[in-house]
């Protein structure tokens, strides 16, 4: 028989042991996850060095530079139009990417989920094939298709539909096309995982209760697939916001996105503090966007519960 006192003691010893055992893992997670972040945060408050790097002298200029611009001659501050427009463009392009991947990804996922069980795996394989190829190569493939001498323009001219090539490359449309292509699987997979679990007897029940196919979609299938749609949106929106390769190749360095702006500061711009401040701003945007998104969805769930 164990006395109550010893049970208490044993339990606390047990808890201590558990903490001790998980300490290495916790340390690695802490260092690996927050360490670099802390360095970035620290750098954002330092002075840029002449050849990149930072000087160990505190300065708010990095953060001021995120949205404001110092006139070299008059030393007056004004809104950094270029940065603001890049922020706005990044958010809009990422939102557009999310919406377009939703529009394409949902029907695709639905199509796969309604195939016979055997052929589903084949379809999924086809969806994931682009993942096997390097991002750079995939992006260049898109470039080959849409550039002035590319597939589309050549064909259109051959059939006499246009006289001069349409400028598609180096536009926001090009960036959007590229990002949609690159991120589409990230939307399809979680939505498919959700739709695959969907009980299609519910769809029949809705048809039975006078719901037209469109109503079945909006009242039954989409609400039930919501977790997958949310997961897919998050998986597409976040990397799209920080995308670097796609906008730099298809946007031609003219139409920058946040990722390119940040890269610029660490490269040619030699302004590491500004780059750091921009990185953290990007992170904050993502965090706020996620919080708003999750909060909205969460409250909807609660209303039902």
């Amino acid at each position, binding site marked *: 028989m164990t006395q109550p006192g010893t049970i208490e003691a044993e339990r606390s010893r047990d808890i201590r042991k558990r903490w001790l055992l998980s300490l290495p893992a916790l340390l690695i997670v802490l260092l690996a996850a927050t360490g670099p972040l802390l360095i970035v945060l620290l750098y954002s408050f330092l002075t840029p060095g002449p050849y990149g790097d930072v000087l160990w002298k505190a300065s708010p200029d990095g953060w001021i530079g995120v949205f404001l611009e110092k006139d070299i001659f008059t030393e007056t501050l004004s809104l950094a139009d270029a940065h603001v427009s890049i922020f706005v463009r990044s958010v809009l392009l990422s939102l557009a990417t999310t919406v377009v991947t939703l529009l394409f990804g949902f029907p695709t996922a639905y199509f796969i989920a309604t195939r016979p069980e055997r052929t589903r795996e084949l379809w999924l394989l086809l969806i994931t094939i682009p993942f096997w190829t390097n991002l750079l190569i995939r992006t260049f493939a898109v470039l080959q298709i849409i550039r002035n001498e590319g597939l589309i323009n050549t064909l259109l001219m051959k059939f006499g539909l246009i006289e001069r090539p349409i400028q598609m490359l180096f536009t926001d449309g090009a960036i959007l096309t590229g990002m949609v292509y690159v991120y589409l699987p990230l939307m399809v997979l979680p939505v498919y995982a959700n739709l695959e679990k969907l*009980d299609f*007897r*519910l769809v029949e029940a*809705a048809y039975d209760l*006078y*719901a037209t196919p469109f109503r079945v979609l909006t009242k039954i299938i989409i609400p039930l697939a919501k977790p997958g749609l949310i997961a897919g949106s998050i998986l597409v929106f976040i990397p799209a916001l920080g995308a670097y390769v796609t906008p730099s190749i298809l946007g031609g360095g003219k139409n920058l996105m946040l990722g390119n702006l940040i890269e610029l500061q660490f490269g040619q711009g030699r302004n590491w503090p500004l780059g750091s401040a921009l990185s953290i701003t990007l992170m904050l945007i993502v965090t706020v966007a996620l919080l708003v998104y999750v909060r909205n969805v969460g409250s909807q769930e609660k209303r039902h519960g």
Partner: protein
Amino acid sequence: MAESNAVEIRDVVKVFGFGEFAFSAVDHASIAIRKNEFFTLLGPSGCGKTTLLRLIAGFEYPTSGEIILNGEDIGTMPPFKRPINTVFQSYALFPHMTVAENIGFGLTMLGRPKQEVRDRVAAMLKLVRMEKLADRRTSQISGGQQQRVALARALAPKPKVLLLDEPLSALDYKLRKDMQIELKRLQAETGITFIFVTHDQEEALTMSDRIAVMSAGKILQVDSPRAIYDAPADRFVADFIGETNFLRGRIGSVSDGIAQVDTPMAGRVSATLPRDFVAEGDVTVVLRPEHAALCAADEPSGCQTTGTLENIVYFGTDTHYHVRLGDGETQFMLREQNKPLQRQRLSVGDRVGIRFEPNAARVLRN
């Protein structure tokens, strides 16, 4: 008269698969289901009951044949246009809606005004005695309650016909008995035609106005429960509904609808002939276990036949006796009601006599 029928199924065939895999789940079925009727489709697993129901609901389209509702062939009309609702075996309640939202779904889809939907939902909740749980999620109620929500949801839009696919099979015995009574009450109160699917023959006999017995996609007999039980159309129906003894024999003489049949096992048996049936030659005679009784083997004059008692099964209300007849092959079953304070007077291995109730035996059509 066509108008007295709620649904009429005319020579409907449903084939699944193609070529050599083609398989008729419903095979030239014809039934006329009357208005306000509690109609049951009864048959063993895989005989096509669900398929027939899905054809009526519109989830499947017939390969050939017609499904008539209000004098119109609705065979290829999509389910959301048919004034027919279904109670699914799995209930299929919408998990993202409350009980009340589930019940109101059909009416909302029909575009009824909000107030009307609210009133009707309240009335339906009352009808199935679920007022208190209106705002619960469907995952937060018991199986029996889910069953009643499914019922209320299907009844709310006031369909012409309600289809029920084994709605009680997931419930435990006691709850099932309660729900059987509840279903009968709802059918009487709403006056809606119920087409009910079950493979439980007792359920079918107690609840139905008429029963259709199905086997391998074919409709074998459509009749009242009493007629199905007392006058089964063929061997399959006789065997499937209740327990039956089959005796082979040869027609001796016929008079006044009663045939004298000579059987090798039980001598001359007087059996009722089906109407309009010209009996001759070899026939099969059926006798229900409760229409026979034990008698003393040593006074064979009063007994139809004798045999060896092989098994005694006590059932509470009655006792079943399995008797091996003289030829050593045929097993005969009979049932006697238990009387209070009765002591067991027989044991396995005893020689017993069997007495038949006069004219209770029936000649099968084939």
